């Protein structure tokens, strides 16, 4: 079994790294893949909550790093999906409790035993980020349509391009096409122009993401706009030639509305 190790990162906090990791993990598992999601946010873990597994944690990644358990003992199987596993972070320590070498060891032990390892990266570009990017050969950079998030994504892409000879793809989260015409928002075109990397997916703003949080069932379990978009993103991860019809619609719809705006003499 060929295992692909993908780190989900962003630089900025709060743009939806953990939500994206959980949603993509669920989507891949629903599509029949065996998936391990790893929370590397030691001290501020939350992937366990998003997946509703917080009451099942016995061992965590720090226990593995410090030799108290084997990787498999720390893996928690999802309540509903037999092929989805979580390796949780510890909540009591900080980022320095694990090292890049620990993450590489974890992934090496899991290689060949699952299809995908998704690593949820902490915010920032410090030690925790270094840990999370060390074992991966693919990266998903998450951003939202704001200048701060895009600039941080740009920084992270720069680091990945300089240091990793890896595939970097962009996931634009919480996109609101109705606001893209607004001056203070960045349109999808603006974001793509600035970041100039391959676009994996555009996830529309969707309150269901928030509503699903307390159920411990990521939005991909239900038929909602964001859930559908995450599932399509997962299809595109599996098969890069897979196109995104709704994405295309979203883009063309966007262009159309701008064009209509121009017709009526609005200034962009």
């Amino acid at each position, binding site marked *: 079994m060929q295992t692909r190790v993908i780190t989900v990162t962003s630089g900025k906090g709060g743009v939806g790294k953990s939500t994206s990791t959980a949603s993509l993990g669920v989507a891949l598992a629903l599509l029949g893949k065996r998936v391990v999601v790893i929370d590397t946010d030691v001290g501020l873990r939350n992937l366990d909550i998003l997946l509703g597994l917080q009451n099942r944690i016995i061992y965590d990644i720090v226990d593995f790093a410090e030799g108290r358990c084997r990787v498999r003992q720390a893996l928690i199987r999802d309540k509903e999906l037999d092929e989805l596993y979580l390796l949780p972070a510890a909540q009591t320590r900080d980022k320095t409790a694990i*090292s*890049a*070498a620990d993450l*590489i060891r974890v992934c090496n032990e899991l290689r060949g035993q699952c299809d995908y390892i998704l690593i949820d990266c902490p915010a920032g*570009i*410090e*030690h925790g980020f*270094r*840990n999370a*990017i*060390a074992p991966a050969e693919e990266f998903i950079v998450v951003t939202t349509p704001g*200048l701060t998030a895009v*600039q*941080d994504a*740009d*920084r992270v*892409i*720069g*680091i990945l*391009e*300089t*240091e*990793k000879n890896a595939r970097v793809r962009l996931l634009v989260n919480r996109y609101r096409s109705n606001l893209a015409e607004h*001056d203070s928002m960045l349109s999808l075109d603006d974001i793509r*122009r*600035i970041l*100039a990397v391959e676009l994996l997916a555009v996830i529309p703003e969707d309150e269901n993401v928030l509503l699903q949080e307390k159920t411990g069932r990521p939005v991909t379990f239900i038929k909602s706009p964001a859930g559908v978009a995450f599932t399509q993103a997962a299809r595109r991860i599996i098969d890069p030639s897979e196109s995104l019809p709704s994405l295309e619609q979203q883009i063309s719809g966007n262009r159309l509305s701008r064009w209509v705006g121009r017709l009526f003499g609005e200034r962009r």
Partner: protein
Amino acid sequence: MSKNISIKGTRDGLTVSLGEGDIQDLLEELDAHLKVQGAFFKGGTVAVQLGARPFDQSDLEKLSELLNKYDMALRTIVASDERAVEAAQAMGLRISPPITAAKSSENSEAAAAPVRTAVPVSGALYIRRTVRSGQVIRHSGPVVVLGDVNPSGEIWAGADVIIWGRAHGMICAGISGEPGAVVCALELNPLMLRIGDLVARGDDNHKARTKTGPEMARIREGQIVVEPWDGIELGE
């Protein structure tokens, strides 16, 4: 090609990796390769990856001579061996540490802000990529970028800066006090612009000037002036 030597063309020129084995043998092997393929690489700059292998100045000179024989210039050394680094410094070559998994993860300080430092040369530095947020390009001569300079990316040039793309970061030209330096870009909308000792701030309204044509900035009568490229007379 043997497994001891690999030659790769990259965006930045040619990269030659020397593997294991006796240096004299490797150089002979490289010579043999270049005899066959040398014409193809003629005029290029070369980065040589030495890894951690020991390499002294005489080895480096031999390597440089060999490349010169085929009209190629040794520009960069990628090495961690102390003597190799010293010898390369003495010869005025660019040095970059080898990127290893351990290094990129452990040495986060150095890796976090990649800074390209060039030794004083009169030639231009050519960058063919996007200069992203947090990346800094420093060069004692002119800098040419084929690509964008994104917000919070920085260019520090001893002379002119030419950007065939969008200049949205911090652009500094003539930093060694060259008042005649100019900054040209297809879209000149930097956060900050510095020419010689003068500094100009970008527009506060980020989107105010997104639809401009190519422009050039230079010092005129003691201040930085930005003009459309059309009809500019460079003069002297």
